[in-house]
């Protein structure tokens, strides 16, 4: 997660430095309406970044995720996912409160206490399985959206995935607000922090193996499909529409839909 500020800066610089999508002439109101709706003025740049990501994904991310799925048995992967989700609880709790959702905040707090103790450090989601309290996600990009902050132009960031300035800012805030990211210092703590980043990337990509393979196979333009899906899902999450969110998503990029425990 820590590389994100750098990525943000890089992508903003690059957006400024590269050409923008051609805005349709005012005489074509339908094309103009579509241009606004698509909200991707930096499309040529974003598509280039998407290609960069695809190269990286084919060479590294996808093979690693496939290896992880092959080598590590599902119960262990579920435990890893649960631990990562539990570690995100403080940030989710903070955002539940910032959004003025005391019930959801109570759920998050209760889950964190129960899963950290009875769930053995978050390995088992006993709050869901034994107490019937499923997880939900909340992040700063969503909080900003609920406060009325617009998303800004669409951005595609390699590794991170589909995003926009609001959600990238929220992502950075989420990293900064994460107590586990600041606790302690020294080689061991640094190692654990980087281990967590690595585990997050691998776990997220593993979760997306089937959906992204399917996207590649069935979409005539995966870039455009992904852009549409991302923006619709974020809108649904900001409206707290039921069914739109995963228990511990990451608030931007490919991570918005992941973090739930695996289907059994």
């Amino acid at each position: 997660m820590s590389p994100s500020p750098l990525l943000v800066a890089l992508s903003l610089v690059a957006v400024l430095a590269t050409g923008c999508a051609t805005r349709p002439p005012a005489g074509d109101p339908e094309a103009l309406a579509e241009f606004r709706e698509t909200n991707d003025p930096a499309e040529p740049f974003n598509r280039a970044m998407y290609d960069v990501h695809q190269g990286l994904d084919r060479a590294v991310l996808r093979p690693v995720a496939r290896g992880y799925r092959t080598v590590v048995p599902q119960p262990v992967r579920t435990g890893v996912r649960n631990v990562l989700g539990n570690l995100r609880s403080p940030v989710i709790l903070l955002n539940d409160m910032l959004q003025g959702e005391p019930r959801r905040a109570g759920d998050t707090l209760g889950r964190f206490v129960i899963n950290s103790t009875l769930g053995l450090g978050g390995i088992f989601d006993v709050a869901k399985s034994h107490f019937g309290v499923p997880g939900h996600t909340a992040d700063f990009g969503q909080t900003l959206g609920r406060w009325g902050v617009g998303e800004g132009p669409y951005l595609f960031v390699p590794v991170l995935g589909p995003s926009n300035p609001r959600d990238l800012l929220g992502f950075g805030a989420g990293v900064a607000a994460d107590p586990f990211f600041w606790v302690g210092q020294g080689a061991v703590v640094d190692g654990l922090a980087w281990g967590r980043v690595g585990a997050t990337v691998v776990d997220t990509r593993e979760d997306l193996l089937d959906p992204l393979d399917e996207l590649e196979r069935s979409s005539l333009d995966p870039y455009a499909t992904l852009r549409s899906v991302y923006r619709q899902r974020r809108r649904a999450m900001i409206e707290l529409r039921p069914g739109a969110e995963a228990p511990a998503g990451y608030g931007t990029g490919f991570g918005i839909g992941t973090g739930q425990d695996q289907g059994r």
Partner: protein
Amino acid sequence: MTKTNRRVLLSACGLALGAALLPLAPMARAQTDPARAAAFIQAVGQELVAAINNPALPHAERRRRVADILRQAVDIEGVGRFILGRWWRQATPQEQQEYLRLFEETLIRNLAARFGEYQGVQFQLGRTQQRTEDDVLVNTIITRPGTAPFALDWRVSEVGGQPRIVDVIAEGTSLRLTQRSEYSAVVQRNGGQVSALLAAMRQQIQQLAAREGQS
């Protein structure tokens, strides 16, 4: 065992059933009655499940049955026109006809290529909400052996006096909107040529047919 997160549905069943999109045929639509829409989805769902879950039937026969159900249940022309959006009027009449034909086949083939994955599929009707005067959202929970249940919402509208599926929504994502972005991007990136989209659709149908042969 294959963990199928709900997003798979989005892309998988998504584009498939999902092509079940909107009915924006600007013809007059009567008010849609929620109880009638729920009964309609219940009936269509049962027919689809029965057709898909019948391994005694040869694959091609199952596809024919599913095709008949979808042609009845989905407002294919309205949804197809919505998805093509502003390019519809730029297409020649021949291209429009060809597009609707390919669109229908894409919808059917998408589902047929996944009969294997959907073995044992069941569904349960959830609540029904009136969205707008002529638009009802019917919630369903889909379960398949070995995967977590997921929610799929069906948008139903009265078209020509009959309830018709006009959109499928998975995890907050409308499939007709997603597919409209996809098709529009293809046309736009090919200099506004609808014929380029038709060529891409033809190729996709061939790939889907090949997949069907393997399963």
